[in-house]
């Protein structure tokens, strides 16, 4: 009987084996890297908007409180983007002939809302709630990055499930109380930080606050800070065991 495989088939088999052993993980890693890259998560990619609205200009240079525009963020699940009327409360007088603001004036005259392109959006099977996070004193920048310095708004964090869970599994790494202002409620401490930064610059802030304002805060690993965090978690009555249950976010 004639031989089916020539001797060279040995090499092909070896190559194929190596290919499987090395190739599968390579493809796997490539997909994993791709799904975490800005190309997929859109982190740090500024999103085009109908009006080039700048947080750096309004929130930082002019010092307008987030709540002037995102008025519902403390009491509702949804932070919301401001209505045209909110812009016009200033721009009916300031820069009222600027061509950049033409869409705003158009929208005000016709009563058709501006169509802002959403920067942060979770899939519809995930539920998120702003008010509870703000009520625990978690600063906007923890999740959104250094918003007050963005010229065109971009996403500060990937908002993948892993990222949410990192905090939900160990909230004591994130929760803190501003000890220089014990009179403030946690929710007020969130916004006071921006005022503090305005007034004294980075020099007036401690390490955590500084990295929050720069947008690099990723939870603390310092033992003392975490012990304080744990105490607050207990004080707020946060049930850490249940905070990572699927039904907290998927229902």
């Amino acid at each position, binding site marked *: 009987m004639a031989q089916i495989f020539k001797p060279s088939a040995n090499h092909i088999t070896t190559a194929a084996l190596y290919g499987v052993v090395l190739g599968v993980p390579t493809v796997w890693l490539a997909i994993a890297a791709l799904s975490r890259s800005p190309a997929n998560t859109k982190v740090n990619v500024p999103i085009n908007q109908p009006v080039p609205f700048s947080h750096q200009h309004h929130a930082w240079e002019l010092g307008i409180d987030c709540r*002037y525009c995102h008025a519902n963020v403390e009491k509702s699940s949804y932070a919301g983007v401001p209505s045209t009327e909110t812009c016009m409360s200033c721009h009916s007088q300031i820069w009222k002939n600027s061509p950049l603001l033409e869409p705003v004036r158009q929208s005000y005259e016709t009563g058709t809302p501006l169509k802002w392109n959403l920067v942060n959006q979770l899939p519809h*099977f995930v539920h998120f709630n702003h008010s509870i996070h703000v009520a625990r004193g978690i600063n906007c920048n923890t999740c959104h990055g250094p918003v007050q310095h963005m010229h065109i708004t971009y996403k500060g964090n990937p908002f993948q499930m892993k990222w949410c869970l990192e905090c939900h599994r160990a909230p004591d790494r994130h929760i803190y109380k501003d000890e220089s202002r014990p009179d403030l409620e946690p929710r*007020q401490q969130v916004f006071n930080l921006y005022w503090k930064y305005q*007034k004294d610059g980075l020099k007036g802030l401690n390490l955590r606050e500084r990295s929050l304002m720069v947008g690099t805060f990723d939870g603390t690993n310092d033992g003392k800070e975490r012990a304080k965090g744990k105490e607050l978690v207990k004080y707020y009555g946060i049930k850490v065991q249940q905070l990572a249950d699927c039904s907290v976010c998927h229902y």
Partner: protein
Amino acid sequence: MNRNVIFFAVASVLLAGCHTDMWRQNKSAPLSQNDFFPDGQASRPLLAGTIAKGHERKDDAFFTGAKGGKWVNELPVPLSKKLLLRGQERYNIFCSPCHGQVGDGNGMIANRGFTLKRPVGNYHTDRLRNMPVGHFYDVITNGYGTMYSYASRIEPSDRWAIVAYVKALQLSQNAPLADADPVALEESLKPKEDKAHAEGAKH
């Protein structure tokens, strides 16, 4: 049989993640778009005169600041430290950009050009000091001249808190020296960092 199992196992791995219909469901969130309506909004504005069950606005003084066609002269809510603190917080968010933190009309936005046409109101004039509280409530609710209405962003109870705080500001800027607590007065006369200077750092 065996082949089918393998086929489905492989197919389910390969096809996982192909369905995205749960990611963008056919539902509306606040502020989302819906082309069915002429203004493109999914959330419909309330018809004029809509009243939510249990929210009838019977108390004229509380909801309009006027009673029997005249502005009320007394707060329709009990005055407390808590109310003033709430008022201070809301004032600093919504009013201080134009009116300044002490209400002198020297806020950041006023300095950037809002005054071009008409000056931003200064609370420390005799006319406004003698104005009934109802007028202040009305200004927040309905706007005044070039100032827009803030009714959509400040709820009635917070508007009264702001009014109370504005009245306190007026007192603070026009208090007779005899009213001052002697200890606090001495404290305040000691040289220290100038408040205006601290604010100036913001600019």
